[in-house]
Structures are given as structure tokens and as C-alpha cells.
């Protein structure tokens, strides 16, 4: 799968490219409005990550161009402007998702995969990892075709970790994703631990062949 990243900040470009490449995506980059416009006209991508504050023009115009060209690329808007207006404008123009800078790399991974899944499987939204199968739309988890019942938080943690398989997920990223923005202040994120403990136990008891390990007190990693 190939992804186009239209972003003028080279540092961010590098980090995103490195991270997405680890997930097996082919990542191309464009550093300006014109370059981005040129690339979307000549090539087809599965997903476009679009910064809307670009030198040379408004990123939203690229979105309009994609529509004019009748292209079916998935677009995730990346912007430092966390204004609701921009969000609505972008989504109305056909963007699939909206991510506010700064973001966790794991969050971007999860969003990209979610967008691609929706496109690939005709509305079906499932994740598979070893013998664990998660249906996000149906809110169900099956281990060896056996239904595993999880609460909302455990389910969200599992989905997030599975979207970032073999990657380090920092606690702050996990807290933000599962518990919401309001939780970003709690420094040590101790409260994550009890949910994580329950999830691990349930997975182990059901015979799941995936393992969640704690990493240096910084975060967690799902291994299969």
C-alpha cells in the first residue's frame, strides 16, 4: 500500500515516514502545495496524509482537486489548527479523518489502518492477529472462534494495540486514545494498569496467542 504525505515540516515528514514504513507502507512525501498537487495528479495512492497549512496554498484545495479528478484516495487531514471550523470544512470536502498536531505516531498508525480497512473490506471493519479476531463495528472479540467478552476500555486498548502490533505504545498515547483528551494530565497513568491487568488475564485465560508486555515503564507492546 502506498501513502502520500503532504507536509512541509521535514522533521515530521521523516518521523512519519519511518514509522509508517515499519508498518510496511510505501511512503512518498511532498513538501509543498504544488508538489502535492503534482503527485496526486500523476499517481494513485491508497491514503493521503494532508497538512492543510502548506506553503504555496491551502491544503483544502488539494482535497477539492482530488474530488474534481474523481479519485478515491482516503484523506486524513493533519493540522495544527484544532479549530472545529476547519475540521468540519475538511470532513465536508470528503476527508476521511482529521488529526490534530501534535499527535502520537501510534495514533496516526491506527487512523491510517482504520481508514484503509474501511476501504478494503467494503465496510467490514475487522482486525486479525494470530488467533484473535476483532470486529470493530460489531464490538466483538473472538479467540479461536470463541467469543471473548471485554468491557469498553479493554476493547479499545486491544484495538489500539492490535493496530500497532509489535510497536511501542506509550502510556500517554494509550490514555489519550482510550480515556480521552482529559486524561493527558495524569503523569504516571497508574489507572491504566488495572484495566491492562484485566485484559491480559482475559486474553491468557482464553488461550490467545498474543502477548502484551510492559516496556520500561513507558508503555506497552503487543506481540504475536
Amino acid at each position, binding site marked *: 500500500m502506498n501513502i502520500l504525505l503532504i507536509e512541509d515540516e521535514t522533521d515530521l515528514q521523516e*518521523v512519519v515516514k519511518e514509522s509508517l514504513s515499519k508498518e510496511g507502507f510505501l511512503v512518498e512525501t511532498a513538501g509543498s502545495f504544488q508538489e502535492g498537487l503534482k503527485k496526486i495528479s500523476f499517481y494513485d495512492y491508497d491514503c493521503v496524509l494532508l497538512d492543510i497549512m502548506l506553503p504555496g496554498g491551502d491544503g483544502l484545495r488539494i482535497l477539492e482537486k482530488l474530488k474534481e479528478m474523481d479519485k478515491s484516495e482516503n484523506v486524513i487531514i493533519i493540522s495544527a489548527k484544532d479549530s472545529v471550523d476547519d475540521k468540519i470544512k475538511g470532513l465536508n470536502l470528503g476527508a476521511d479523518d482529521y488529526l490534530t*498536531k501534535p499527535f502520537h505516531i501510534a495514533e496516526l498508525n491506527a487512523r491510517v489502518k482504520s481508514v484503509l480497512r474501511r476501504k478494503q473490506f467494503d465496510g467490514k471493519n475487522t482486525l486479525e492477529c494470530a488467533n484473535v479476531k476483532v470486529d470493530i463495528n460489531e464490538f466483538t472479540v473472538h479467540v479461536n472462534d470463541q467469543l471473548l467478552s471485554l468491557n469498553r476500555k479493554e476493547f479499545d486498548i486491544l484495538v489500539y494495540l492490535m493496530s500497532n502490533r509489535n510497536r511501542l505504545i*506509550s502510556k500517554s498515547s494509550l490514555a489519550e486514545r482510550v480515556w480521552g483528551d*482529559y486524561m493527558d494530565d495524569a503523569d504516571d497513568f497508574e489507572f491504566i494498569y488495572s484495566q491492562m491487568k484485566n485484559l491480559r488475564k482475559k486474553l491468557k485465560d482464553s488461550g490467545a496467542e498474543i502477548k502484551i508486555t510492559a516496556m520500561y515503564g*513507558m508503555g506497552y507492546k503487543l506481540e504475536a
Partner: protein
Amino acid sequence: MKLHNYTLKYLAVALLSVIMLWGVLFYIHIKEQIGESLDRNLNNYKLDFIQAAQKDSAVLTQLFVSGDVYHITEIPEEEALTIRDTYHDSTISMDGEDVSARKLTSAFSLNNKYYKLELTTSTLEEESLIKNILYGIIGLYLALLLSILFINNLLLRKLWRPFYSIIGQMEKFHLGRNTQVTTADTSISEFASLNETITSLVARAEDTFSSQRQFVENASHELQTPLAISLNRLELLLENESLSDDAAMSVTQVMKGLERLSRLNKTLLLLTRIENNQFPATTTVNFNDLVQTLISEFEDLYQHRNITVQIEKAKQPLLFSMNEDLAATLLVNLLKNAIIHNIDNGKITINIQPYKFEITNTGAAEPLDTTRVFNRFYKNSANKQSTGLGLAIVKAIANLYGLSADYTYRHEQHTIAILFPRK
């Protein structure tokens, strides 16, 4: 004291002494005039009497002539020759009452006989005249005072209008609200210069203030991206298999520091944006519903420390028109504050009245510094979870909407109350 009352006070005192002095002089002068005319009259009466007596000696036995008292005694020549006309104050009895009078003592000869004449006339009418004059002066004084009061009020009010206008605006002036000072045209050069000075002063203050706030906002904003990228890079580094455990632990420590920095920065940015009033959209917020939703979001956080949360609600909900995000931010910071500074197995009580939101929590067994509790970076504990900005945000939001935020400590419990204006 108002300016025109002040001038009136001085004018009243000054005028009183001037009028009093004038009144006394006038009184003395009039009294002298009246005394002179009295003495002249007495002299005329005497001459008339002597003339009448020369024609008809029968008048010598008459004692009263039109209210004046004549007293005639026959005296020897030697005595008569010593008597000169003298006037002096005296009293006479009239209707059984002693009234003040003026007496002329004189001597005259008639038919080779010598008589002493004592002629007394009542000064009653003259006294009442003087009294009337005094009343007149008092009346004049009061009338003058009243007219000055009236003119003063009218004139000063009109003259000082530009002054009061600018004072009124200064009272309402708040730095950072971008208030425009509007001045009325005035032909008085002092006021024109005052207006000009204040207008430029306000503009300069606003300018400096907003550029400073803009700087804070820009600085926070600019810090955000490099911070996030550094964190992202470190996350990637940590995934590197060749990294030793020791190195990984160091990276983790750096990341924790950066995360803390990033949070602090985000909070500062939020604080600046609140103060810059960048949350214009308002809706009617139901705090009862909102607090319920938010508490459920924090469930894991407080249950983890075994803190119980109790909500007391009045029948009528607390409704207030404000920005929805800010309302949530306000409550989130209050809740976080109550959780973070709580003790294990502690308690949080939330009391919602139609005009009051109160949150009480157990915590440190000593009161916080009430004067500094809402200040930025005020930290009483070495709590690592605290940024020291939570209550500063609460205060900033309260200020923005004219709410009051108060801290109290009672029975080893800390209470923060947000008071909403009654409509």
C-alpha cells in the same frame, strides 16, 4: 466627595463670613443712622414742646404725647445752667412691660422759671427694623447659597462632563479586553489633553499587553511541534531492538520529561487562549448533565485510588450561557484537582445549586494559601502530577465570564466554589 460639592462647601464657608462681616457692618451703620435720627427726633420734640409751652403753659402738666413720655420738673437756676442736652439709652414701662427707649435730658426756662425736661421715646420700632434687616441678611445668604448651588451644579456638571465620561470609562477598563476609549469633543484644553493622554495610554497598554500575550501563544505554539517530533523520534528509538536496557531506561526518562514539558506547554497555550478570549461561541450549558458525563470519564482515575464521589444536586439545574468547551475545561480542572490532590480512600463531594458549583475534597491536612491558590505554578505539594496550572485555568475561565472562584478550608476538607451571577 464630589467636586461640585467640594467647591460648594468652600463657597458656603467663604460666603458666610463675607456676608456675616457685611451684615455686622451694615447693622452697625444702620443702628448708628437710626440712633442719630432718634436723637434728632427727640431734639425736634423738645423744641416743639418748648414752643408749645411758650404758647400755652398747660402742656407742662401733660405727660404723654403720642407715645413719648415727657417728664418736667422745676429746678433752680444754678442746676439748670449745668444741664446740657444729653442722650442715653433707657427703658420705659409700656403696658406693664419694660421696653428699651432713648432718653433726652434737657433744661429750659419759661417765664423766668427753670425746668428740667426728660423726654423718653420708645425705640421698639427701630429694634424691629434692625431685626428685619438681620432676617433679610440671613435670607439673602440662603438665597445666594441656593442659587450658587444651582448654578454650580448646572455649570460644573456641564463643564466636567468630559471628565466624568472618561472616569466612567476608566472604571470599566480592563487590560486585555481590548476596550476602546471613546472621548467626547471638548473645547476645554485641559480635558482635551486628558482625553488624548488617556487614549494613547490605553492604546499603548493594550498594545503591549496583547503583543506579550501573542508572544506567549506563539512561543507555546512553536514549541509544540519540535516537542512532539522529539517524542516521536524517541518512541521510534525505543523500538530499536539493538538498544540496551540501560539506554532504553534513559530514553524513557527523557521521554517522561518531554511529555511533562509538552503537557505544561499545552496547558499554557490553553490558558493564553482563554485569556485572549478565543472561545467566542456560547451555548446554554447544563452543568448538572456535564458534570455527570465528565465524572464517568474520570471513573478509572479515582476508583484506582479508591476515592468516593458524591453528587448533591438541587432540583433546579445550574444553567449558564458560556462556551461549551470552556465549561468542560472548567469542570475537568476542578475534578482533576480534587482527584490529584486527594488522599487514597478519600472523598469528593460535588454540590450543584442553581447559582453555585461547589467541589469539596479530602487532602492535605492544612489549608492552602488562599491568596495564591489560583496563581500560576502555585504548588503546595511536591505532587508530580500537578502542573500548578489547573486552578489558574479555573480562575481564568471564571474571570472571562465574570464568575467568582473561592477557596475555603473547613473540617480538613478543601472546597472550591464557583459562584454564578443570579439573573
